């Protein structure tokens, strides 16, 4: 008992020392996640927390405070206001709405708080977006599908939630690619709400309606379901379809030798955003200003791609991880530093 007390006291001293002296700098960063419906989001936060811990080695103390719960839009606005009350230096948010945070971000910026959104872009001019370009994400896999089919074939698309901005950008992404090929005919586009069961159902219906499908462009979160329907229909060899980045799907991919390709939307985006945030808090200037995207405030991260050429390597990287683990990538501290002057 006594030992333990001493240990606690020692730890406390260390923390106090750390806060005052040992670190050159210390920052408090708030992470907000407004939806916890998938393991991807959990992994996103865990990776961001790990990234924050990694800064200790460089003599910077990054403390993260997390709010992660299923909330409505006002509830997530409350997240931001809670961070403001706590006096954080930066807020990194995976937002529930692209536009609804404009006023509250302005209020945060007025308090001198750095605001970064990740995974979904926001319209606010007081924030920047650090993450992947959803349009490009879709275009990459659409390009893979077009190449695999040799520029010719009948294709169906299975999308997420109608009216969701990321979904909209992805539709634009694959449409722009398929439009380049006269030989590719898009038979039908359906919504399955990013739900595996609905994805499987949708694929079954499509297979029943169109017996001669060559390619399927399906978004992550539904691709495993769609593939299950394809395998049930015994068409594994005849159809090329986009895939997922989860370990359990990668296993199926390896076992059945699927003709698949997957753009990676890595859960590491929040960790990347955190690394960028710390450099910005340090007062460093971006080499290229964050002015991409429809809102002119985006800093796009590279999008890895998995297909036959690098599959072995990717599959090895997730060896031993649980089934829900997503193949990931994030800017390391050094990668992030390279973006700055």
């Amino acid at each position, binding site marked *: 008992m006594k030992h333990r007390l001493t240990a606690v006291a020692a730890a406390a001293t260390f923390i106090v020392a750390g806060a005052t002296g040992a670190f050159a700098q210390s920052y408090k960063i708030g992470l907000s996640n407004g939806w916890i419906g998938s393991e991807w989001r959990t992994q996103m936060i865990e990776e961001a927390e790990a990234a924050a811990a990694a800064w200790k080695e460089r003599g910077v103390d990054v403390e993260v405070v*997390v*709010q*992660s719960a*299923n909330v409505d839009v006002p509830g997530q606005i*409350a997240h931001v*206001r809670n961070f403001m009350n706590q006096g954080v230096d930066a807020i990194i948010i995976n937002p529930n*709405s692209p536009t609804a945070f404009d*006023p509250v971000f302005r209020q945060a910026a007025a308090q001198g708080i750095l605001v970064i959104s990740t995974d979904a872009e926001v319209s606010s001019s007081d924030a920047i977006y650090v993450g992947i370009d959803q349009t490009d994400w879709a275009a990459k896999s659409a390009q893979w599908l077009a190449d695999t089919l040799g520029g010719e074939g009948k294709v169906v698309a299975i999308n997420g939630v109608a009216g*969701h901005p990321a979904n909209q950008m992805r539709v634009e992404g694959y449409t722009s690619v398929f439009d380049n090929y006269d030989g590719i005919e898009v038979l039908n586009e359906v919504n399955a709400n990013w739900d595996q069961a609905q994805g499987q159902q949708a694929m079954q219906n499509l297979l029943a309606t169109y017996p001669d499908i060559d390619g399927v462009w399906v978004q992550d979160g539904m691709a495993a379901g769609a593939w299950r329907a394809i395998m049930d229909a015994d068409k594994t060899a005849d159809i090329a379809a986009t895939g997922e980045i989860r370990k359990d799907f990668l296993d199926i991919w390896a076992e059945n030798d699927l003709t698949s390709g997957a753009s990676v939307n890595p859960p590491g985006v929040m960790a990347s955003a955190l690394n960028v945030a710390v450099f910005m808090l340090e007062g460093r200037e971006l080499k290229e200003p964050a002015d991409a995207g429809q809102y002119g405030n985006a800093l796009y991260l590279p999008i890895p791609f998995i297909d036959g050429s690098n599959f072995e390597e990717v599959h090895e990287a997730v060896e031993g991880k649980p089934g829900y683990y997503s193949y990931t990538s994030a800017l390391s501290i050094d990668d992030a530093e390279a973006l700055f002057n």
Partner: protein
Amino acid sequence: MTDQTASNSLSVAGQRLIARFPFVPAAIILVVLLALNGWFEPRSLSFGALRGLVSTYLALMLLAMAQSYVVFASDLDLSVGAIVSLVNVVMVTVMQSLGGDPLMVLFACVVGIAVGVACGLFNGFVVAALRLQAIVATFATSIFFTGIALYVLPVAGAPVPEAFWLTYASSYFGIPFVFYVLALVLVILTLLARSGLVIRILTVGDDAMGAFHSGLPVTAIRIKGYALCGLFAALAAMCLTGDTASGDPLVGGQMTLNSVAAVVLGGTALSGGKGSVLGAVIGALIIGLINSLVFFVGTPSEWQNLVQGLAILGALMIGVLVSRRAQK
């Protein structure tokens, strides 16, 4: 002996108090939550933070009010969130197409209120006139309203004229705009509590058959309850638009169940016939303060949802226990 008499008279006083003001337990919980928030994060009680609290939850307060008038008649409206979304996108679209002129902004607000009332009348017609089960019927209309919202504005976006949301964030004579709105809301709900309509709505909720036998136009009264609900949902949408400055066809969806929870937390029974609108408004704040408290206490992120749920259950239980005890 004297002790017992004293405690008896105390419980009689408590019983009177709660019978008269059913929101009292909720108000006590609210004060406790405020104190706890202040204990764990002193800055959460600063003027600016309280202003933020009201700005954020004004929409939910109004939505809880909206839900109250339906629950009073022993009905339920699961489409309030969808109405908020629809009114939000309609207003934003009107503002965008007519420009940010203050007169046009005002016109957009009128259109928004008309849309909200129309949705309420439609719900009322389906539930009271066609006699469909309220829960399922309004669940269906919520999908229908969301569909219209998606048609009006397929993707979130469409910024609102600055005149609109800057007003929402502004202060007059040193007092934030939202506080004026809150005061107005309190005045309106006090006035409405005295209106013949709300008394009749409560009567219908108490015993619909008895009300029918007494010669009250039960169907018309229930429809009016839904219309009132639509009206306040539209006002909630205006506040939400003020705080979010944009149109989003999916913005309100998740607010529906929060509105029901706020009504119940405020001491109103879903069985209808009694309750307090002020309680529902307090209930909305309770939900907000619980969410904040869970964070300020330092709950690890993976437990936040769970703790939040338990805390709301706890608040509900305390409210029920206090009322029951007072009624003994």
